[in-house]
């Protein structure tokens, strides 16, 4: 969780100085990314949203190469081609995000079907925002997962807003109830509690590998920044609302639980410091990265090089 927070803080600090894109901030939502990913095992597949870098960090993407990727360097995870929304690192189970809200959900069902057909005890997880549940493919993907009993978990990060449009305005009924409509397991969870998220997802994962099908998880959370960095979010959110969520900061909440259960505060502080050091090192490295070259742009449209550059 600290790593997600520190990565973003460092990204904002460095990228605003260096004129690089910041993308979609996730501060405030870390407990969902971290809680979900902590419940997964190596081999599981994760698909993210447009608000992607938190998930990428939480699943364990290489921070140096991720920072290089966000800087558009040819040394980045995807040679600088993908940026925040499409960066992927499949060797750690990270299959990337999407620019199209909910556009990642069908692919998650395919990764889950692949797991099932190959008899492997692995699952797929797809994150989606509250805005995504109103897309047609949400229903298509949940339906496919349900009828074929696929090992997939759909995690709805309900941060209350699709850009400036509130969930209350745009979404009929309760999101969690949509699971019942498809006859699948579903759970609403406090998205500020990494422990609760973790427990619900661990249980959903066990169901999935047992062959008992998909789960829909609705995690209620909040983003501290706007839809994008620089978005004037005070134009659509009240100060009181903002402060009420700040009071339930997911990192502070977990820290409190840890201290109450006897974890040394110094050890907790060290986690934050180490996270910050790693992120600073990653963005210092990104700054010094090789710029993308023409080959980084032109090659590899196809696997068959004879089809490229035509």
């Amino acid at each position: 969780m600290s790593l997600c927070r520190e990565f973003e803080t460092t990204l904002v600090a460095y990228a605003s100085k260096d004129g690089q894109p910041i993308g979609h901030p996730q501060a405030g939502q870390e407990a969902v990314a971290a809680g979900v990913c902590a419940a997964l095992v190596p081999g599981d597949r994760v698909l993210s949203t447009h608000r992607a870098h938190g998930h990428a960090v939480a699943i364990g993407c290489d921070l140096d190469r991720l920072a290089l990727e966000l800087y558009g360097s040819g040394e980045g995870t995807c040679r600088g081609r993908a940026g925040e929304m499409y960066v992927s690192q499949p060797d750690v189970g990270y299959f990337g995000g999407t620019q199209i809200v909910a556009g990642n959900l069908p692919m998650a069902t395919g990764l889950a079907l692949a797991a099932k057909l190959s008899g492997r005890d692995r699952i797929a997880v797809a994150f989606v925002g509250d805005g995504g549940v109103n897309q047609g493919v949400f229903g298509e993907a949940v339906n496919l997962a349900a009828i074929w009993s696929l090992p997939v978990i759909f995690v709805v990060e309900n941060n209350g807003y699709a850009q400036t449009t509130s969930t209350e305005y745009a979404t009929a009924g309760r999101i969690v109830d949509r699971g019942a409509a498809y006859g699948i397991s579903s759970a609403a969870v406090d998205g500020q509690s990494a422990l609760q998220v973790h427990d619900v997802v661990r249980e959903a994962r066990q169901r999935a590998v047992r062959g008992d099908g998909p789960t829909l998880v609705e995690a209620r959370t909040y983003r501290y920044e706007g839809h994008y960095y620089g978005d004037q979010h005070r134009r659509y959110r009240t100060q009181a609302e903002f402060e009420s969520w700040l009071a339930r900061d997911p990192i502070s909440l977990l820290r409190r639980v840890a201290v109450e259960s006897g974890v040394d505060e110094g050890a907790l502080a060290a986690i934050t410091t180490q996270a910050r050091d790693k992120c600073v090192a990653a963005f210092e490295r990104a700054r010094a990265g090789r710029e993308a070259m023409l080959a980084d742009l032109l090659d590899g449209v196809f696997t068959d090089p004879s089809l490229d550059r035509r």
Partner: protein
Amino acid sequence: MSRTKYWKACNDALRQEMARDRSVIVLGEDVAGAPGRAGDGFVDAWGGPFGITRGLIKEFGPERVRDTPISEAGFLGLAAGLAADGYRPWVDIMFTELMPVAWDQLTNRIARTHYLSAGQLQMPITVKTFGECYSAVCHFPGLVCVAPSDAYTAKGLTVAAIRSDDPVVIFDSLKLLRSQAEVPDGDYLVELGRARVLRAGTDVTLLGIGATTALCLQAAAELEQAGLSAEVADLLTLAPWDVPTVTESVRKTGRLVVVDFDHPSCGLATDICARITRTAWDRLLAAPVTVTPPPVPAMGMDASAAMAAMYLPDAAGVVATATKIAGTGSGRL
């Protein structure tokens, strides 16, 4: 080698590849028919649009021949997930008109994943559809688009598509469904990215795309009667198309007529003319031209017979256009 109908050649290709490679998975609406009703004795009730997938479920079972709900975006995106994890899905999108429903999955996900992941992920997917509205799909780099012109190329391109590690969209023409050609019984493939010259000529190149190749051959025979020697080329791969082969032909003949059943605006035929104008410029004797339907939002198949006859180009139209750009109706120029 045996005389084989187009639909059967497609069916044979699938059967051969499914037997050869366990990672090939068939997906689509009613590709078998009556899914889940084996208990009632219903298996393979439909066999896919026009029998393309007939019998496959009996040989390969319901795990590999999967009837889907009507959700083109859902199951095409599902195919992307299968492909990212080592499977080779062959996906039936019944008609080209249904493709826009799954546009995001096709153009943002399947077309871009290999490139954007810098090769970490591959999308060995074959999408098969009936229809001629291919130009819009050809627009997106990362998709290989092909249009077979007969049963021989239908089987060979299907085999090549399934074995390719790149996503391939096959545009089949309903007009060719029951056409027959000599098709090898065994293993062969028609290479992706290559056009072929079917008939040599010296005065004009007629370039066919899918079903229009037969029109070009017919027109060439008629032109010969009138004293014009037409070369006929068959594009086969629409994107990325074979610029060198078409260029070589046009540099020899000096004239190009592209015959296309797709809508004309921003279309493949116009794109070919533009490219060839550059690559054959110093040998051109006339401006490259297209023969296409008029720019109206009609569909070839759902119009009345009278309207369909007016809508689609025919061999007479190709002859008239070729004769016009050749400047005279008789003799070598």
